[in-house]
């Protein structure tokens, strides 16, 4: 299946992916509205920055997803390889945060957790990939 | 005022026809006149002409110069030049018949010549080169004189007018040759000038051509590096020079010439066997500026044969036919059927594939 892959050699640490992710998940029609309003959407992608190296991390959509297996509420499910969260079931216990080996389950002040759904329901192409200026994250089939 | 040939580039559409008897049997000129007349609508009256091979058996070892003069002054100057360089065995006006559609005719003279041995030796040139340079010299340097035919045992007859009228004017029924080519002209950028009519000839090479080549200036600027001077700015002229250059200066055969001027596509070359590929690659690379693109169908006449060739995309019509020892080529089938209703075989040659016909018996070009 197509997944988002990171090539840290090309990540500039510009954080655009974060902003595109937030925007994509904000439900707003315009990026300015998504950020200059009262509520800001937490990005589902995390940038790690080092001295010479940067990279973005988001849900790997594991073949053996520990988050899904450990979910106490049956809120995380896999459909065609894509792991999604059902907001109405999540109780915010964070067992998935405990389980995810990549640290890709994101929490904010809201009750439920947030995670990357590959923008499947919105554009078909992950917004982070589309917004990356240097192809440091790509959406492709590998292996 | 319209510029004439030599002052501006002249594109033109046209009709061509030609035939050859493989066994060298001589055929009356009225046949070729009849053939070309069937393509009347492919001409516009601004030029017609013919080339006949094997027509001067009595002077077969002499160069036959056909010359247009605008006035007697140019004739005198030319004749002085000829006397200086050649032994003039015979000279006369070319016999013509008054024709209501042929007007403004220049003085039309014919000379049977051979180079003066002393002059030839002094020039350190080969005989043919000596003759060719002499022709070019007259044409460039002597105002009002134009040599339009200069081969042995062959002759070009051309004028402003429809080709069938030109044929009558020159009384071609009185000539017989083993090969004939004809041309009806449809130029779009000339008032019509006798010298500009086809065939275009140098030595025994004659070209009749239908088309408008788009590679003209690339071709011209290349051959002009090698002593040619394109004075008429016509396609026919440059094609003739290219053929002369490749055949006479590089000793290349008609087949090879076809591979250069209508070169195979690179994609085709890639598929050839190694040896052929090497040759084709070298030809295209070495003579890249002699590739002729744009539409053309030509009939090249030369001593002992004819070659017909289409551009490699076949952007102009051309059909060929065989009947016994005759081979016919024309822009349209009607022109063949007119003189040979029942053919053995008729076909449309592919673009870039030459039809080369030479006389049997190693070319008894005199047909006796």
């Amino acid at each position, binding site marked *: 299946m197509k*997944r988002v*892959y*990171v*090539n*840290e050699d090309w990540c500039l640490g510009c954080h655009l992916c974060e902003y595109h992710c937030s925007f994509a998940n904000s439900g707003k029609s315009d990026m300015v509205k998504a950020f200059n309003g009262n509520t800001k959407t937490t990005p589902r992608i*995390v940038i*790690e920055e*080092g001295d010479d*190296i940067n*990279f973005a*991390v988001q849900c*790997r*959509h*594991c*073949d*053996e*997803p*520990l988050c899904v*297996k*450990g979910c*106490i*509420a*049956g809120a995380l499910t896999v459909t065609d390889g894509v792991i999604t969260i059902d907001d*109405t*079931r999540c*109780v*915010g*216990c*964070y*067992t*998935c*945060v*405990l*389980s*995810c*080996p*990549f*640290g*890709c*389950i*994101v*929490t904010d002040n809201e*009750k439920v957790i947030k995670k990357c759904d590959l923008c499947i329901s919105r554009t078909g192409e992950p917004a982070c990939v589309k917004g990356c200026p240097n192809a440091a994250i790509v959406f492709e089939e*590998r*292996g | 005022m319209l510029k004439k040939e030599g002052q501006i580039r002249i594109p033109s559409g046209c009709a061509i026809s030609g035939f050859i008897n493989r066994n060298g049997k001589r055929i009356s000129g009225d046949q070729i006149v009849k053939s070309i007349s069937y393509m009347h609508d492919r001409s516009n009256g601004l030029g017609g002409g013919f080339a006949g091979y094997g027509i001067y058996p009595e002077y077969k070892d002499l160069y036959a110069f056909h010359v247009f003069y605008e006035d007697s002054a140019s004739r005198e100057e030319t004749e002085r030049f000829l006397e200086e360089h050649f032994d003039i065995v015979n000279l006369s006006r070319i016999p013509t018949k008054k024709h209501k559609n042929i007007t403004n005719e220049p003085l039309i003279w014919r000379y049977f010549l051979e180079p003066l041995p002393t002059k030839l030796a002094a020039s350190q040139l080969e005989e043919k080169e000596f003759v060719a340079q002499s022709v070019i010299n007259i044409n460039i340097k002597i105002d009002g004189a134009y040599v339009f035919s200069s081969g042995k045992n062959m002759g070009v007859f051309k004028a402003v007018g429809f080709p069938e009228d030109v044929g009558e004017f020159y009384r071609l029924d009185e000539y017989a040759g083993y090969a004939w080519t004809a041309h009806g002209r449809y130029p779009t950028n000339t008032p019509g000038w006798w010298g500009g009519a086809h065939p275009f000839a140098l030595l025994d090479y004659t070209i009749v051509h239908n088309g408008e080549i788009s590679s003209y200036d690339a071709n011209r600027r290349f051959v002009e590096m090698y002593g040619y001077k394109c004075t008429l700015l016509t396609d026919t002229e440059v094609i003739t020079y290219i053929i002369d250059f490749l055949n006479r200066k590089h000793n290349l055969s008609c087949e090879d010439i076809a591979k250069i001027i209508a070169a195979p596509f690179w994609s085709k070359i890639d598929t050839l066997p190694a040896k052929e590929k090497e040759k084709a690659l070298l030809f295209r690379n070495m003579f890249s500026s002699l590739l002729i693109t744009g539409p053309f169908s030509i009939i090249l006449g030369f001593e002992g044969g004819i070659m017909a060739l289409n551009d490699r995309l076949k952007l102009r019509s051309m059909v060929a036919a065989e009947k016994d020892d005759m081979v016919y080529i024309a822009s349209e089938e009607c022109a063949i059927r007119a003189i040979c209703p029942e053919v053995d075989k008729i076909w449309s040659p592919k673009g870039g594939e030459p039809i080369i016909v030479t006389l049997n018996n190693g070319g008894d070009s005199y047909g006796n």
Partner: protein
Amino acid sequence: MNYLIIGNSTAAIGAVEGIRRLDTTSSITILSDETYHTYSRPLISYWLEGKVSDEKIFYRPQDFYSANKCNVLLGKKAVKIDRSEGEVILEDGSAVAYDKLLIATGSRPFVPLMEGLDTVSNKFTFMKYDDAKAVKAVLKPDSKVLIIGAGLIGLKAAEGVYKMTKDITVVDLADRILPSILDNEGSNIVQKHLETKGVRFILSDKAAKFTDGTAILESGTALDFDILIIAIGVRPNTELASECGLEVNKGIIVDSTCKTSDASIYAAGDCTESFDVSTGTEKILALLPNAYMQGEVAGLAMAGGTKTYEKAIPMNAIGFFGLHMITAGSYDGDATSIQTEGNYKKLVLKDGLVKGYIMIGDVARAGIYTSIIKEQIPVPDLDSELLASKPQMMLFSKSRRLQNLGGVNVGN
């Protein structure tokens, strides 16, 4: 092939999903002594609190059994396993045959003998849906709730009733709360947080005797209550296994495919023992993720698969009144801890490995630590400077990152 599963909770569901990955046709029968569609036990406090509706307490969608072609026998209690006949005898005397059997009987609350307990009318344990329903039936605004046990269940019960009543007292024999998952500092932080919400704690004390409505503690303190919740601990349901002669220690003994000492009988979940890689010991790890993972491996093994589960560690993610904490592994070793306002983190190293951690407040990306413990990645292979600061992929070597973030076979 006839699969039979005793139990209808996490391990059982894991097993069904495991079996169906390999075998989509054979019959699966599920026995449950409860009468509910499979539901999530940890959700009962949320249900009681009203955060989870009647529909959402279910662990899997309503069409789960039909979609997975399961024959479910609800309200049927298994009383005996007849290994020689290959069948399980139910309370009503009927028998259900199996080719492969999974024991997923879970655990039950431990209620010690306490004087006068039988006189208490509103006394509850807090493990099943029915427990929560029973509490809800009597819970009124201003009910005085007494909870015996300051562990995970007790405190979740406290949170569960909190919406209705703030009058909550928690008593525990230990000197601190959540002793099974937190260290002293951590316990203090959480206790303080709960106390700011109004929960009262009486620690290092225990109920000596009860009358209906009053508990007398060993210290002599008398506590009035309307509702008593006993959350002292749990015991594995191993009787079916031991009675039919399977090897049982504290829990049922299983191998890495969850097979018991009988090749056609498997066991998974809270009723079994697992190997804790953080301490190197066998122990009962009564945790929902562990139950699922064991159930799934058991299901796969029953259907002929070879996947093993051997990276279990104790771990917990839980929150009380908005304060989140995630813990894992063992705290025996060299600890570094950082405490900032509202946040606490402790990382324990031993023998060149990360053995355990506690994160309270900021729990972001804790799973990276969890994986380091489970995968037993040597500390020298990690960026030691970054290790203590926060969990991140940058801790790993470039080649490992490449494998994890750019490679294939993700998550295996």
